[in-house]
Structures are given as C-alpha cells and as structure tokens.
C-alpha cells in the first residue's frame, strides 16, 4: 500500500473562522484507492476538513496537496483542484430547475467541452450505475431523497474525478433510504475509487474503510483500521462517542 501514489496530503493544516480555531494541525495522507471514514461529534471540524480539500473553504496555514498539486490558499487554482475531486453533500444540492439528466450533463458539456450527445451518453452511463436511468427526464424534486442523493453521486462522477468526498451523505435521509445510497457508495469503493467519507454509518465504515479517523475539537484524536478502532478505541473521547452511536 505504501508505494501507491499519494492522492491527498494534508500537512499541518490550520483554519480559523474569525477567532474560532476549527482545524488544529491536521495531518492526513490518502493514497490512491484508499477509503477513509471520518467521524466525530458535530462541530469537530470534519466537514470543514474535506471542504478545505476542494477549496469550498480556504485554509490559513499548512499545505494541502491534491494529486500532487499544491492548493493555493487564496483559491487561485481551485478549478484545477476541483476537476479532480467530486463532492457529495448532505443536502444533495441538485439543481432543482434542471432535469436529472441536465444536472448530469452540465459538467461534461461545459467543463469538459463535450458535444451534447456525448455528454448525455456519459450522464446516462453514470445514472445507470446508480440505478436512476429511468428517472433521467424527471426533475430532482420529483424524486425521493435517496434517489436524489444517488443522482448527486452520479453527477459528481460525470466529472470523472480521481477522488470522491462525501459530506454526511446519508444524514438527511429517511431510514428506509439510507441503504440504497450506501450500496452505491460500497460499489464505488469496490471499483477502486479513492474516497473520504464523513459519516456515522459504522456498518459502512466496517465494510469498506481502510482507515477510520476520529476527530474532536478540530483535531484528529485517533485513526486506525476499522476493526481495531471499533473494538478498542484508545481514547476516552472516542470511547464515549462510539458508545453513543453504536
């Protein structure tokens, strides 16, 4: 594993919101094909960490390298970075005024400058992969939450990203729909995608994660492979957290 290419490197990352120190000296290395699960109480900085990686938030200190490219602190090369990184949000963030298909052809047509027909082929391929191909002409708000989140995953995949970030993708879903989204994510993981997932779905973590990271107060408290993390967390903070969610 250690010889694989480093996809994401976070070195001594520090970030403040005003006076509030949200990320404190965070270090993280994700290699090609690795799956990381980040968990922790709300306000621990886990979302902020992955949002820094694709430049939705700008950091003040430290370095972030994505695919070997240094992320500029002022966001001057954010488009270069974002082209490699797909992101799935807690609240789906599909574009409600565009059909499912149009949501998915947007990037291929504009970002990758493909002709419409080719972009539609790609979009349909990814929609099929998440099992929504027969809903392609509907509008997002006509779909259930689980379906919307699957469309959001397909939409992120149309950029052909090397890394996928998931920001609590199942937290806004009804319990009945969580598994359909997790199934898609598991499949994606099995296809070898590099993934960082902020999630509290510990079953998912057990099944696919190479490493589980526990964050609190803006710091990485501990990280380890899922089996040992779940079986024997080292810190009292992680123990207390696990006892609440398991």
């Amino acid at each position, binding site marked *: 594993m250690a010889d694989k290419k480093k996809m994401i490197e976070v070195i001594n990352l520090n970030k403040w919101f005003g006076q509030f120190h949200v990320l404190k000296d965070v270090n993280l290395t994700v290699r090609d094909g690795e799956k990381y699960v980040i968990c922790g109480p709300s306000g621990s900085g886990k979302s902020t960490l992955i949002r820094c990686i694709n430049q939705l938030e700008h950091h003040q200190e430290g370095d972030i390298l994505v695919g070997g490219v240094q992320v500029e602190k002022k966001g001057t090369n954010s488009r270069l970075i974002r082209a490699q990184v797909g992101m799935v949000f807690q609240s789906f963030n599909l574009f409600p*005024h565009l059909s499912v298909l149009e949501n998915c052809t947007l990037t291929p047509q504009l970002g990758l400058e493909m002709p419409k027909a080719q972009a539609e082929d790609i979009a349909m391929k990814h929609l099929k992969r998440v099992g929504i191909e027969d809903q392609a002409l509907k509008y997002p708000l006509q779909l259930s939450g689980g379906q919307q989140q699957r469309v959001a995953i397909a*939409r992120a995949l149309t950029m052909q990203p090397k890394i996928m970030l998931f920001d609590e993708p199942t937290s806004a879903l009804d319990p009945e729909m969580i598994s359909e989204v997790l199934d898609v994510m598991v499949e994606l993981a099995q296809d070898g995608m590099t993934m960082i997932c902020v999630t509290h779905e510990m079953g998912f973590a057990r099944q696919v994660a190479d490493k589980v990271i526990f964050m609190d107060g803006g710091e990485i408290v501990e990280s380890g492979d899922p089996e040992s993390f779940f079986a024997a967390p080292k810190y009292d903070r992680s123990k207390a957290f696990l006892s609440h969610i398991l």
Partner: protein
Amino acid sequence: MTDTSEPLVFQPAPSRPAPSDSVGFVGWMRANLFKDIPNALLTILGAYIAFVVLSWVLNWALFNAVWEAENRRECLDLVGRSGACWPGVYVWFENMIYGLYPKDQVWRINIGFALLIVWMVPMWMPKVVSKVQIGLSAVLIYPFIASYFFMGGDKGLVWSAFIALSLAGLICVWATAISETMTGKSIGNWIVTKLGAENDSEAKQKRIKQIAAAILFVVALLVVSQWSLQEVRTRFWGGLFLTLVISGFGITFSLPAGILLALGRRSDLPVIAMLSTAFIELFRSVPLITILFMFNTMLPLFMPAGTEVNQLLRAIVAVCLFAAAYMAEVVRGGLQAIPKGQMEAAQSLGLGYWRTTTLIVLPQALKIMIPAIVGNFIGLFKDTTLVSIIGLFDLMNMARAVGEDTTWLGLFIEPFFVVVMIYFVFCFAMSSYSMRLEEKLATGRDR
C-alpha cells in the same frame, strides 16, 4: 399467541367519497360565503356595497352620459354633473394617445409598436426553440428601428447600420420561426442543408452562416438607405405613446442593469462592491422627482457650453438609473434566497463564477423574483407620470390638458377616468402575464 408461518397481509382501507355538502358549488358557497351568521352578514353587506358602487359608476359613465356635444356647457345644460361628458374626451382622445405628434405621421407610431408585436409573436409559437435569442434580440436590437420610426430625420451611416441591424434582426427572427416550425432546424442549419453542405466541417458550415448573415445585413442596409422619414422632434411626443417609450426603456434597462448591480454589490471584489452599493443607495435615497429635476435642470449646467442633450433623453436616463437601483435590491433579495449549497455544488462541479451565476443561481432566483420584478415594472410604469413635472406631456399630463382647453374647460374627471382605464388595462395585463409565467415555470418543481 398464534403460530402461523404466513405473515399477515396489510390491507389499506378503501377511500370513501367526500360528503356531498362539502364539494361542488354549494359546498364552496357554504365554506366561503355563508359559513356562520357573521360571515353571511358580511357577504350580504359586501354584495350590497358592490351593487351601490357599480350602479353609481354605470349610471354616470353610461346611462346618464352625454355622447354628443360641442362644448362642456352643452353637457352641463343637458345632465349637469350626474352624467359623464364624453365628447371632450373623444375630441382629445388622439392627443391622449399620441401627444402632439403630427396627425399625418401617426401611422409611424402604430407601425413602430406593431413591429414589436410582430417581433415577439414567435416567442409564443410552440415549435420555436430559440425563444431566449428572440427575446434578447427584441430587447437589444428592436429599439433601433422603432426609434427611427418615431424620430425620423437624417440618418448618418452609423445610424443606418443600426437600423439595418434591426431590420435584418426582424427578418432573422421570422426566418428562424418559420424554419424551426416547418423543419425543426435552425435557420442557419436550414441554409447549410439547402446548399448541400451539411456534411462539411463545422468551420465551413459556420462560414456559410456568417456569409448568409452578411448578405442579409447588406441587403437590409440598401433598403434602409433608400428610405427616409421626416423628422418629428421629441417635444411633439406625448400621451400614452410617450409613457410607453419612457417606461419601455426603463423596464428593459432596469432588469439587466439591476442584475449587474446586485451581483456587483455581492461581489468579493471590494471596489466593485463599494461602487455598486454607493450607486444603489444614492439613487434609492432620493425621490424620483428630485432625480428628474436634477437631470433636467442641473445636468445642462455641467455640460460644456453648446452641447444640448434632448430633454426626453434626460428624462429617460433619469428613470432608467432610478429603476435600476430599485431593481438591484429586488434581485439581491432573490439571489439571497438561493441556498448556499447550490453555489457550492456548482463550484465543486468545476463551474466558474459566471457559469454558476448564469446557469444555476440566476435562473432559480429570477423565477422566485417574478412577482417582485413585475411589481417593480408596474410601479415604474405608473411612476413615469412624474415626467409631467418637467414639462413632458405624458398620458397623465395630456389628460389634464383636456380640462384646460377653453372649449372643455373644467373637464377633468372624464379624461382621468379614461386614463385610469388605460393604466388598469396595461398594469393588469402585466400582472396576469406574470402569473401565467409563474405557473408555466413552476412545472417540474412540484411533485
């Protein structure tokens, strides 16, 4: 405890029809008009008031009205003040619509406005695809040809070119409409196909389209150069015509300018944000009437001696800037209603600022802003009556002029009644159209 291995099958209870007195017309009356005794009393009272007002208006405007008379005296002798005196309005009606525009040239105004309708008709044709382009062309290049119809006079080469652009645009719009309706192809592709070049490279096809456009433009320019209209100075413009010109410019300018100002105010670039905010706040904190005065009387003082800016133009500029500042705040409200997640999603998909704004944020924001935008348009349309203050004879001022005519001295209510009707028709049309638009755009949003 039963020990069946078969699971129980859940059977939802069948739906029953609603009780008959809660549906249909009777149900509606019962629920809304006669729910209880106070409600029923209010309904009867309301109906009575409506009856009294309506019968009074109808008596005055129709049954007691005078339809033929030489002057106001005759009217008063016939019915006193109990009935309207319509002949005065009838005599002045043309002036209320066209101002003091020469009578033998009035057809130019009619043609100018008819052209706009002709230009817009394809937007309501079901098979036409390029509706956005047609709408944009109506806003951006129609005004040239209309302005020439209205103003006439000498046209230099530059002015001719703009008019030719307008003419070519109109032809293009209809060629597009026809070719898209008949063949489903854009006009450019239709020409390419007719020339048998549909299998050629894209660059060559583009070239053909450019040449076709150039030929059309040259022909239009030749036509335009062969044709001229006598000049009608803008001080003869007036009535509804003037109102429509001023508010037309105000409306078409205020929306794009308002959008830019609103984006500017929310911009991350401090200079742009500051300038936009300063402009908006300045124009919003001054009454329109003051701005009109400033532009009318003070602007010439600051201009170099000898330059004369047309009074109408000054009024139009003042109205446009004022309207843009108001529109900017409406648009900003709409922009703020779009969840931040939409922008983040667009950014994370690699779209830049302009694409995020034009493809993701604005379409959604404009849709929810339609009522507010149209409200602003209606307000602006009515606000243009203020130009009468600086001596322009818009519809309102023209109506007042009727009562100052010695033959019809004191005849104010009747012309104002007509003005009210005209304003109502225009404003109600705008309002209904916006509602239809809202309904149409809402499809696909709801489950």
